[in-house]
């Protein structure tokens, strides 16, 4: 029979592991979170329709992942989606001011992500700036509806 101190320490460790597991399931798995302040190289972009874009979706430039979607909110003035992007710190001051952002879909059933394409402006993009050149998500159902509507009229 192991001694009493060891038993108590082991049980304490056991309960601690259980608690850690609960916290892991709460915050990491089910995404319960407190509002975090944005930090690093953060830019904003406004979209008319974001489709199925989710927080933490990837942001790519030339197909290379360069950041994540940090937050998605509704802009209550223009009723557009305000998407906050967190990009790699090394890119700050290297992209041009008129970089364009487009929401694209990975494959037919895949996730939405944001693809950036560099512009030609002399001015450079700094943290806190807003991307003005944006392209909303392509929503397949709307396209199909339009197509059906058009062909019915003809």
């Amino acid at each position: 029979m192991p001694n009493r101190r060891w038993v108590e320490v082991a049980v304490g460790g056991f309960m601690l592991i259980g608690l850690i597991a609960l916290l892991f399931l709460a915050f990491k798995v089910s995404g319960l979170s407190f509002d975090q302040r944005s930090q690093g190289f953060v830019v904003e972009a406004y979209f008319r329709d974001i489709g199925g874009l989710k927080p933490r979706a990837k942001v790519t430039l030339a197909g290379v992942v360069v950041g994540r979607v940090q937050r998605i909110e509704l802009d209550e003035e223009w009723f557009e989606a305000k998407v906050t992007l967190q990009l790699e710190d090394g890119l700050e001051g290297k992209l041009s001011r008129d970089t364009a952002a487009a929401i694209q879909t990975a494959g037919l059933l895949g996730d939405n992500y944001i693809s950036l394409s560099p512009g030609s402006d002399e001015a450079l993009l700094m943290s806190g700036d807003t991307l003005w050149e944006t392209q909303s998500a392509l929503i397949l159902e709307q396209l199909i509806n339009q197509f059906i509507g058009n062909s019915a009229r003809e």
Partner: protein
Amino acid sequence: MLDWLAHLGRLGLTLIAALGRSGVFLFQSLNGWPRSSEALRLWVYQLYSVGVLSLLIILVSGLFIGMVLGLQGYTILVDFGAEQALGQMVALTLTRELAPVVAALLFAGRAGSALTAEIGLMKATEQLSSMEMIGVDPLRRIVAPRLLAGLVALPLLSLVFAMVGVLGGWLVGVDWLGVDPGAFWSNMQASVSFRGDVVNGLIKSIVFAWVVTWIAVFQGYDLVPTSEGISRATTRTVVYSSLAVLGLDFVLTALMFSNLS
């Protein structure tokens, strides 16, 4: 024919009597649980023997089950180009079903059978009767700490199981097969709800904890005090608890998740 009918009747009566005995047994052992430091010490010791000692098997099986889920899920989802939904699949399967059920089955095999054998041997060697003789209530001294320890240990073990399983799925899906880590976690977080999935899974495992420890302790206390009786009771503990866990799981799932479809 009449003999057969009489046999059936006897069987029914024994069954109902056993149910009644186990109910009284549960009530008596939990009633008047002393709140002394000695009782706490006994409880901690039992928590060690049913919880801490089961941790290894839970960690290892959780990891492998998560890894298998990741691998199988990936090979199916990749056909549809939807391998990014892997995190969601692994996490939902684990938190809703696999973690509570598999942890309870492993717990019944690892800790439940040990409880039955321990108490059964105490009864066979007349330690329980001797305790009563010197004025110590064996229900309070032996049974109650074990019941309460099982009740606390299994929910914790099933949380650990779910965590390790998700990590196993992550290891295979993201580290090995190259699913995008952001998509893995974000799909998971978007679809798993804390109240609806994690807490419901926890409620399931609390129910299973009651059932498994109750069956284990009662089988040990109620057995025929011979070596054969002990072996039969140990087998019965594992069989009955597994059946009860699987049956109750269906009922609980129907109550909790049937409106989600």
